[in-house]
C-alpha cells in the first residue's frame, strides 16, 4: 500500500515536470478571437501597433483612414501588385473586410483591358460620357499630361456644341451634325461604289500654332466612334474595309495621309457590321505624322473594293489628339498581382484561364518595350525621354511634350531606360517563369498560340515562345545589366542614350536613368527605387551594402541634401530622395520644388518602408530591420496619442507639427499636395504590414501546392504570431519562435497535396529536427538553411 502511494506521487510529479519542460521549450500560445488578420508577439506593444495600423489601413470600418471611394480592392492598374500583396495572403474573403477582396482582385485581373501589344490598361477601356473632357476616364494611360496641358499646342474636338460643326464637312452622300448632347451624328449613302465616307476639318489650328498642330503634341489620337453598316448584319461580312484617321501636313500640302485603325490603333478592332470603339491611334509611328505640322484632320471609312457604303447611326464622341501617357506600370503590376493571387489561392483553374493574357503581357514587356534586349526601354512611349526643365540665365525653361512620367512618380520625367521599370520587369520575368513552372506541374496545356501586335507598324505578329528556363535566363541577364555602370552616350541625332546599366559609381547607388537632351544622370538619391531593387535581389553584394549604408546614414554621399539621421526625418519611412531636385520635373508641374515639401523631393511615403524593412532584413539582418520597425512604432504611438479618428487620424497629429512651412503637409490628391504620403489615395500604405509575413516570416508560395516560411525572428522577440492567414482557402495561424514554426487553427478543407516548407538557419554545431515532438531525419540543408517539407496541417517543427 505504501509503495503504491509512492508510485502515484511519482507519476504525478513526472507529469508536472514534463509539462513544465514542454512549456519552457515552446512558449505559450496567444489565443485570438476574430476573423481579420491579427498579430501577436512577445512584445505586446509592438503587436498592438501592428494591429491598429493594419485595421486602419485595411479601410473597412469607421477607423478607416480613407473614405469608401478609396477602399482597398478598388485600386487601378498602376498599383495592383502592391494592393494584392497586402490582401491576398490573409482572410480578406467574404465580408470580413466589407467586400470580398479576393473576388475584387480576381475580377480586375480577369477583366482589365489588354491592348494588341499585350499592354494592360490602367483602368477598363469604357466609353466616355458625351460631355467628358481630356484626361477623364483614364484607361490606357495616365490622366496627364493631356491636350489641356499643352500650352495651346494641341487641340481636341469634343463635339459638345452645335457651332463645332462649322469646322467639319462631309462629302456627297454624307450627313453630319453636332447634336448638343456631347455627340456628333453622321450617316452616309455613298453616291457610287468605292466611295469612302470622309469627315474632315481642313483648318486645324491651335492656340499656339495658327498654321497647324505640331505633331509632337499629338503622338496619340483618341477617338470614340460608332456606326452601323446598313447592308450587313450579324455574321455577315461588312462592306467597310477600314476606319482611318486622315490628315494633311504643312510639308505635304494637299496630300492626304491615312492611318488605318487596323495598323495604327493600339487595339485594332475586328470589323463587323456594326462598329463602336474607343480607339487610341499611335500616330507617332506613322512617318508622315511624326515631326510634322498637321493642317487638316479627319476620319475616313473606306469600303471594300466594289462596295457601295451605307452607314447609319453614326456617332462621334470626340477626336482627341494628345500626349502618349501610356506607362509600363500596369502591365508588370498585373503580372505580379496575378503571381500573388495564384500563389496564395493555388487556383490552377484561374491560372489556366489567365495564362494567355499573362503571356501577352509578358510579350508587351519583352517585345514592344524591348526587354528581350536585356533591359526594358520605354522610349516606345513617345516623349518618355527623361527631359525635365532647364534653367537658362536664371529663367526656368519648360519643355512641353517631353519628360513624361512612368512609374510611381507621375511628375518626374522617366528616362528611356528607367530604374523602376527595370526592377519590376526583372520581377515580372521571375513571376512569369514561376507561373509557367506551376502550369506545367499542374498539367495545364500550352497548346494555345499567343501572339501580339508587332511594335513596328505592318510588322508580323510576334509569338510567345518563352519557357521557364528562357525566362530565368533573361531575368538573370536583366539583373546583370542593371548592375552595370550607367553610361550616357551621345547618339547621332544629338540626343543621349544610356548604353550601360543603372549603377552610379560616383554616388554608390542606382540612378534613375539618363536625361536625353543633356546626358545628365538622374540621380537624386531615390531611396525607394534603390530599396525596391535591393528587396527584389538586384545588386551585387557590394552594391547592396553600399546602398544600405547610404540609406541608413552610415555613408554620406557628397552633394546630398539629406544625410545621416536626417534621412529618417519623417520617422515612418526614409525620405523618398536625399538630394534636392529643382529642375527635373515634367513641364506641367507648377507646384513647389522646395526641399521636403513634396513626396517626390525629400518627402516620404509610408508604403516604401516595406522595401526599407525588407532591404535591411536582406542586407543587415532581422535585428536591424526590427529596430527600424520599432522606430515606426514609436512614431505611430505619437500619432495615436494625438487622438485622431478615422480619416483625420493623421491630420490631427500633423496639424500640430505643420506650422505653415509645408514640411508636415499631407499629400492628398484633389485637396492638397504635400510631403507625406500616408492616407487617402495612398492605398498602398497597407504594404507596411506585409513586411511581417514576406520579410520576417519569409513567406513564399510561388511553388505549386506549397507554402513556405523562413524563420527570420529577430532576437528582440521570443515569439511572433499571425492569425487568420489564408492559403488555398484554408485559414490558419502561423507562429514563429526561435528555431521553431508552429501552424495552428487550420480551418477548412486542406486540398490534397498541399505542402508546407519550413526553413531555419542551420544552427552551428549539432542539432536535431523534431516534427510534432518526434525527431525527424526528413529534412534537407540548402544554402545554409534546414528545410522541412511536410503536409500542410497543424504542426510544430523545431530545429535545435
Amino acid at each position, binding site marked *: 500500500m505504501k509503495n503504491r502511494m509512492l508510485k502515484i506521487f511519482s507519476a504525478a510529479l513526472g507529469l508536472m515536470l514534463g509539462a513544465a519542460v514542454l512549456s519552457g521549450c515552446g512558449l505559450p500560445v496567444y489565443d485570438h478571437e476574430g476573423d481579420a488578420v491579427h498579430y501577436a508577439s512577445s512584445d505586446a506593444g509592438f503587436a498592438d501597433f501592428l494591429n491598429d495600423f493594419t485595421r486602419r489601413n485595411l479601410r473597412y470600418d469607421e477607423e478607416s483612414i480613407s473614405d469608401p471611394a478609396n477602399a482597398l480592392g478598388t485600386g487601378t492598374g498602376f498599383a495592383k501588385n502592391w494592393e494584392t500583396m497586402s490582401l491576398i495572403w490573409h482572410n480578406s474573403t467574404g*465580408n470580413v473586410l466589407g467586400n470580398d477582396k479576393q473576388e475584387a482582385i480576381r475580377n480586375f485581373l480577369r477583366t482589365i483591358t489588354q491592348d494588341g501589344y499585350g499592354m494592360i490598361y490602367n483602368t477598363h477601356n469604357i*466609353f466616355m460620357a458625351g460631355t467628358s473632357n481630356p484626361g477623364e476616364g483614364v484607361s490606357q494611360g495616365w490622366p496627364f499630361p493631356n491636350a489641356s496641358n499643352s500650352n495651346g499646342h494641341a487641340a481636341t474636338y469634343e463635339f459638345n456644341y452645335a457651332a463645332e460643326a462649322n469646322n467639319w464637312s462631309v462629302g456627297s452622300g454624307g450627313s453630319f451634325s453636332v447634336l448638343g448632347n456631347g455627340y456628333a451624328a453622321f450617316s452616309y449613302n455613298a453616291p457610287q461604289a468605292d466611295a469612302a465616307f470622309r469627315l474632315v476639318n481642313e483648318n486645324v489650328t491651335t492656340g499656339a500654332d495658327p498654321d497647324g498642330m505640331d505633331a509632337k503634341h499629338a503622338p496619340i489620337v483618341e477617338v470614340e466612334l460608332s456606326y452601323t453598316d446598313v447592308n450587313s448584319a450579324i455574321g455577315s461580312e461588312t462592306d467597310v474595309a477600314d476606319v482611318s484617321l486622315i490628315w494633311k501636313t504643312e510639308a505635304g500640302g494637299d496630300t492626304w495621309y491615312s492611318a488605318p485603325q487596323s495598323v495604327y490603333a493600339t487595339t485594332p478592332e475586328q470589323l463587323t457590321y456594326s462598329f463602336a470603339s474607343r480607339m487610341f491611334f499611335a500616330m507617332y509611328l506613322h512617318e508622315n505624322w511624326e515631326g510634322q505640322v498637321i493642317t487638316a484632320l479627319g476620319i475616313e471609312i473606306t469600303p471594300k473594293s466594289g462596295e457601295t457604303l451605307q452607314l447609319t*447611326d453614326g456617332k462621334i464622341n470626340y477626336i482627341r489628339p494628345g500626349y502618349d501617357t501610356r506607362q509600363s506600370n500596369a502591365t508588370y503590376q498585373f503580372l505580379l498581382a496575378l503571381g500573388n493571387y495564384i500563389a496564395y489561392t493555388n487556383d490552377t483553374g484561374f491560372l489556366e484561364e489567365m495564362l494567355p493574357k499573362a503571356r501577352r503581357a509578358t510579350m508587351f514587356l519583352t517585345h514592344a518595350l524591348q526587354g528581350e534586349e536585356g533591359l526594358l526601354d520605354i522610349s516606345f512611349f513617345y516623349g518618355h525621354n527623361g527631359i525635365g526643365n532647364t534653367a537658362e540665365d536664371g529663367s526656368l525653361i519648360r519643355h512641353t511634350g517631353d519628360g513624361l512620367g512612368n512609374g510611381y512618380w507621375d511628375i518626374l520625367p522617366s528616362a528611356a531606360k528607367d530604374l523602376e521599370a527595370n526592377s519590376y520587369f526583372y520581377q515580372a520575368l521571375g513571376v512569369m517563369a514561376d507561373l509557367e513552372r506551376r502550369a506545367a506541374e499542374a498539367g495545364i496545356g500550352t497548346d494555345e498560340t499567343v501572339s501580339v501586335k508587332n511594335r513596328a507598324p505592318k510588322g508580323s505578329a510576334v509569338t510567345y515562345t518563352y519557357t521557364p528556363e528562357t525566362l530565368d535566363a533573361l531575368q538573370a541577364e536583366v539583373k546583370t545589366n542593371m548592375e552595370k555602370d550607367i553610361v550616357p552616350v551621345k547618339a547621332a541625332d544629338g540626343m543621349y542614350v544610356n548604353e550601360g546599366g543603372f549603377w552610379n559609381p560616383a554616388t554608390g547607388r542606382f540612378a534613375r536613368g539618363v536625361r536625353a537632351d543633356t546626358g545628365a544622370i538622374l540621380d537624386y538619391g531615390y531611396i525607394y527605387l534603390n530599396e525596391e531593387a535591393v528587396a527584389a535581389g538586384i545588386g551585387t553584394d557590394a552594391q547592396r551594402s553600399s546602398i544600405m549604408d547610404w540609406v541608413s546614414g552610415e555613408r554620406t554621399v557628397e552633394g546630398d541634401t539629406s544625410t545621416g539621421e536626417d534621412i529618417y526625418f519623417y520617422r515612418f519611412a526614409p525620405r523618398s530622395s536625399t538630394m534636392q531636385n529643382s529642375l527635373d520635373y515634367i513641364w506641367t508641374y507648377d507646384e513647389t520644388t522646395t526641399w521636403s515639401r513634396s513626396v517626390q523631393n525629400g518627402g516620404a511615403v509610408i508604403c516604401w518602408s516595406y522595401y526599407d524593412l525588407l532591404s535591411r532584413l536582406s542586407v543587415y539582418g532581422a535585428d536591424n530591420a526590427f529596430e527600424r520597425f520599432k522606430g515606426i512604432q514609436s512614431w505611430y504611438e505619437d500619432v495615436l496619442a494625438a487622438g485622431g479618428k478615422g480619416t483625420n487620424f493623421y491630420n490631427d497629429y500633423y496639424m500640430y507639427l505643420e506650422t505653415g512651412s509645408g514640411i508636415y503637409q499631407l499629400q492628398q490628391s484633389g485637396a492638397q499636395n504635400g510631403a507625406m504620403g500616408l492616407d487617402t489615395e495612398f492605398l498602398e500604405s497597407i504594404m507596411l504590414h506585409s513586411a511581417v509575413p514576406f520579410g520576417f516570416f519569409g513567406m513564399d508560395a510561388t511553388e505549386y501546392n506549397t507554402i513556405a516560411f523562413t524563420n527570420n525572428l529577430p532576437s528582440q522577440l521570443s515569439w511572433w504570431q499571425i492569425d487568420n492567414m489564408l492559403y488555398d482557402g484554408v485559414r490558419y495561424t502561423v507562429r514563429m519562435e526561435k528555431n521553431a514554426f508552429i501552424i495552428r487553427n487550420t480551418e477548412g478543407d486542406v486540398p490534397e497535396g498541399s505542402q508546407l516548407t519550413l526553413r531555419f538557419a542551420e544552427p552551428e554545431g549539432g542539432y536535431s529536427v523534431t516534427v510534432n515532438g518526434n525527431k525527424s531525419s526528413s529534412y534537407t540543408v540548402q544554402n545554409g538553411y534546414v528545410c522541412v517539407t511536410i503536409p500542410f496541417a497543424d504542426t510544430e517543427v523545431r530545429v535545435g
Partner: protein
Amino acid sequence: MNKAKRLFVLLICFAMLAGALFPAAVFAAEKDPVRTEEIGFTLMENWADGGDAQELKVFYLYFSRDVLMQEDGSSIGYWIADNAGFTYLQQFFAINGRTMQDINENTDTSGYAFSTFPSSLGGVYAVPVIFYSDSPSHIQIRIHEQYLKDSGADDVFTFSVLEGLYTDARTTNEDASGYIPVRYELSETVTFTKDAENEWTCDHELVKYEAPEEIIERADIDFSAIEYETIFVNSISDIIVYDAASQSEYMVLYFDRAVSNQYIPYASAGKKFLSSNGANGALGVTLTQAQIDSLYDYRLDLSLNDHIKIDGKTIREMKEQEPINADQRLYLCWSGNSSDPRSVTFYFAGGSESWLDPSERHTLEVLEGFTTPLFGRVGASQTYYFDPDTRVWSETDLASLADPVYDWAPQSAPNGMEGWAIAVIAAAAVVVAAGVAAGIAVFAVKKRRVRRAADAAEKTDGEEKG
C-alpha cells in the same frame, strides 16, 4: 401512239391526278378547327379619359389566350366594329345587360359630341360604344361619356361577355414548328363590375395569360464554325428605380469586353415585335430586316431569354409570369453605342410582376453558353448576389454570411490565454510543481529515513530484545 389514244391517256392521267388530290382538297376546304378551347379572362384594366375632348371612357379587357385575330394571325383593329366578319362579336358584349349591338343600333346619338371619332368618318364610329383590338390578347372598349350619363351607368355598371361567344384563331403546335387552328368558346357568361372607385371585379376566377410560342424562322447556322471568344461578367449596376411611381427600373450587366456594337432594344422580345417596331426607327435605332433576322438566326434571343436567370428563373420564365405584354414589361437590350457596348441593359417596366425590390436580396446568373452579337461566349456560369444593404452585386453572397468578428483589443489587455500571462502561470506552475515535488521527495526521504530508523530501532530492539 395516235392522237385519240394520246388524248385518252391524258384524260386518264387527269382523272387519276384529280382522284389523288381530292382528299387533300377536301381537307384544305375543311374550316372546322381541330380543337376548341374555353375562353378565359386575365384582367380588366383601367378606367381613363380618352380622346381630345375626353368624351370617352377607356378600359381594356384581356383574354387568357390570343383569341382575336385575322386568318394570318394579325390584329383585327377596328374591324371588330365595322367589318362584317367580326361585327357579330357585338352581340356578345353587354353593358348593364344591353349588348353593344343593341346599344349602338338603338341609341339616339344626335346630342353626342364626336370630336375623337367624328360622324364624318361615315358613322361607323359615331356610336356609344367602340371596340378596338391592336393585339389578339385584348380589346379596348371606349364608351361615350354621354351614354354613361344618359343610361345612368357613369358610376357603377357591369360589363359582360356573354355565353356563346366564339372566335376562330390559330395557335402554335406543340413544338412551335407551325400553326394549328383553334376555336375559342365561352360557355358561361362572365361579368365584370366597375364600382364607384373605378375598381373592377369579376364574378369568375381570372386566369393567367399564356402567349402562344412565337414561330421564329431561323436560318441554319453552322455554330461549330464560329470561333467564340470567351467573355466574363465584369460587374452589374445597382438596381436603379427611374420612376418610383410606376416602379420602373433598370440595371446594367457589364462584360469584360464589347458584346454588341449596335444598340438593339427589346432584344429579348419576339421577332415579330422587333420587326414591326425596329425597322421604322420607332425604337430609337434603325434595324434592317436582315439585322433583325440575324439576331434570331444566331439564337441571340435564346441567349437572353434562356441563359440569364434572376432569382433562379430564366428571363423566359419570368416573362411567363407577366399577365400581359411580357415582352414590353421585362425586356433586355444590347446597349451598344447607346451607352456602353460591353453591356446588356435590363428594363422592368411599370407594373412588371418581375419587378426587383432593391431592398431585397437577389441573384443573377449568366449561364455557360450565353452568346453575344460579337460572338463572345460565357465559358463558365457566373452567379452574382445582390446585397440590399450595400446595393452591390457580388460573386460572394455577402448577405448570407454571418457578421464577422473583430478583436482588436490590445494584446496587453486581458484576452484569453495571453502569452506572457501563460508564461508566468507556466513558470509558476513549474516552480510550484518543483516545490511540491521537492516536498514530496523530502517527505518520502524523511519517511524512508524514519522508517529505516524505526526499522533499525525495531531491529536493534529485536536484537536487543533478542
